[in-house]
């Protein structure tokens, strides 16, 4: 699946997006893979919301290879 990073998360991961192969995951499984790829993401886990295909996900969301997943750190628009 395609993973997008924004704002300071791009500095942490040093990329704006990455591809994460993984099949069918729940949020915990997804975070585990993300932290494996970028260990420093761990400290942002509690403040980051996940979006799937341009929508915030619910707790029970599942993520598959065709999804576009975005890590949304606290926003500051306006």
């Amino acid at each position, binding site marked *: 699946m395609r993973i997008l990073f*924004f704002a*300071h998360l791009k500095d942490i991961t040093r990329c704006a997006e990455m591809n994460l192969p993984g099949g069918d995951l729940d949020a915990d499984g997804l975070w585990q893979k993300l932290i494996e790829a970028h260990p420093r993401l761990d400290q942002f886990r509690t403040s980051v919301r996940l*979006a799937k295909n341009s929508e915030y996900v619910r707790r029970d969301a599942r993520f598959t290879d065709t999804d576009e997943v975005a890590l949304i750190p606290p926003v500051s*628009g306006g």
Partner: protein
Amino acid sequence: MKIEIRLTDIPIAEHLSAPASGVGAGAWVEFRGMVRGEENGGVIAALEYEAYSPMAETEIRRIITELTSGQSCLFVRVIHRVGIVPVGEAAICVGIAARHRAEAFGLLTEFMNRLKRDVPIWKCRALTADELAELKTQ
């Protein structure tokens, strides 16, 4: 109700027309949020905004639709800058036409609260005058 949403990297026009919302509109309110000359106590010359574009627009539309359900708002326009926005320029412009002012004021206040909580747009960098000048010469 008509909704108009735009993310743009060029300056927001100083004078936007109120929509031709007909004889039913009793209230038109426009808000501009401008970049101020200081951020976290330091003097700045500009802010850089970043957006997750498709989701930001989807989310803005979703919030407006939710907030106006059962209301008589007639028109909402939201324009948000992305990229570098110099001090004094508008980062956001929200225009609302409604039958009555209370609906327009309420929607404006609540929409801005929700935008600042949920819409994936970030102030990703504050630029000093030197940094801004350097960017312009590139």
